[in-house]
């Protein structure tokens, strides 16, 4: 008597357990996403016909975490991309809906897969502030030893005089490139060491003396390329 009751109860318990495992339908998997270093609005992540607008966190520097509204079923594939991103032959040809002034990518963790491959779907995106070139021309350089600096953030940039095929100094214009500057930060190019027997001064940039801010105008222009370093014989 006692046993006959226990047996159906056990069967029921097993059924209930199976149902929890997915016996009542396929298991579902929420697509969890963590995005680091979002500083500007505009990012839209997209997968399986769902879009999610990722805004900067309330507290700067914190990660943004969310799950797409609808979980997907076991066996369904997913590929979380900035909306509209296209990849041709392994190369990103359109970045998609990125934040303003930033580019987000998923460099270390896979952003695509099949639900059920892993116990939990965790997508990671990391955003970096876009950087823009800071370049120009050195005019009249004949002496050795010129180095240019942009504050203390980067290593100084040495510039050598132009030479002809015989190795003789010609004094022709020499292009130079400082380290690229992130959007929203200032730059101020100075002469760190003067060339032998010459004195060089920096002009150009947004303020006319080699300084400025990598702002919207500079971003639109694709960077600051109008720096001029003019070198003359020391008096």
């Amino acid at each position, binding site marked *: 008597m006692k046993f006959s009751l226990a047996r159906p109860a056990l069967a029921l318990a097993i059924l209930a357990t199976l149902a929890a495992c997915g016996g009542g339908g396929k298991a579902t998997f929420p697509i969890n996403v963590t995005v680091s270093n979002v500083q500007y609005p505009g990012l839209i992540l997209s997968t399986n016909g769902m879009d999610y607008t990722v805004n900067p966190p309330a507290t700067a520097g914190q990660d943004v975490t969310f799950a797409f509204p609808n979980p997907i079923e076991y066996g369904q594939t997913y590929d979380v991309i900035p909306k509209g991103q296209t990849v041709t032959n392994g190369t990103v040809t359109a970045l998609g809906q990125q934040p303003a002034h930033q580019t987000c990518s998923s460099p270390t963790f896979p952003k695509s897969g099949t639900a059920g491959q892993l116990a939990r779907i965790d997508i990671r995106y990391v955003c970096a502030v876009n950087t823009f070139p800071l370049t120009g021309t050195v005019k009249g350089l004949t002496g050795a030893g010129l*180095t240019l*600096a*942009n*504050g*203390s*953030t*980067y*290593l*100084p940039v040495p510039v050598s005089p132009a030479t002809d095929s015989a190795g003789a100094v010609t004094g022709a214009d020499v292009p130079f490139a400082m380290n690229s*500057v*992130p959007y929203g*930060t*200032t*730059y*101020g*190019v*100075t*002469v*760190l*060491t*003067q060339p032998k027997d010459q004195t060089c001064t920096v002009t150009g940039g947004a*303020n006319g*003396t*080699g*300084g*400025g*801010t990598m702002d919207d105008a500079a971003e639109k222009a694709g960077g600051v390329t109008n720096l001029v370093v003019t070198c003359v014989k020391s008096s």
Partner: protein
Amino acid sequence: MKSSILRASAVSLACALVLSACGGGGGDLTLGGAVQNVTKDGLVLQNNGGDDTAVVTPYTSFQFTNRVSTDDQFNITVKSIPSNASECHVNNGKARANYYSIYQVSVACTIKQHALTVTVNNPTGVGITIVNGSDKKDVAADTKPVSVSMSPVNEDGPYGITVLTQPAGHTCTVTGGSTGNGSGTMGSDENTTVTVTCA
């Protein structure tokens, strides 16, 4: 009797020599690693108290001359540090050698930093903005000289103070620093001062 002792000791000595030759650099694992925050000569590393290895330009990695064998104990220590570093430490520097452990070693130094102070003589009573590259400081209008602390600068690292925005109707010029034009290389002196004078 005598000859047997001689023979035995000679043989064992020869054996010992051969064995020590095997252990001291005859292995097949190269011991080395990445180096961070080193900008000049002076960092010397040792393994097990010897095999001195200087980290040279471009100061991004090091490699000991003597190879090690699997299961050899290695213990990498810092013998000397560059003059502009406050300390250098070895990560995962002590272990038994195998194909995993030899790739976990790295060395990181901390570069000394010094204050960079700008004195702004701005009797015009108009605010200006000065920058050291990406380090930006707004200076409020003041008829007295104002002392502005910029972010600290690495010893032996560059700096270059410029005026980002000239006040309307005035011109501010930058002097001082090790080159005289507001830029230079940070020495070991704690009191590097640049002067901005507006007229």
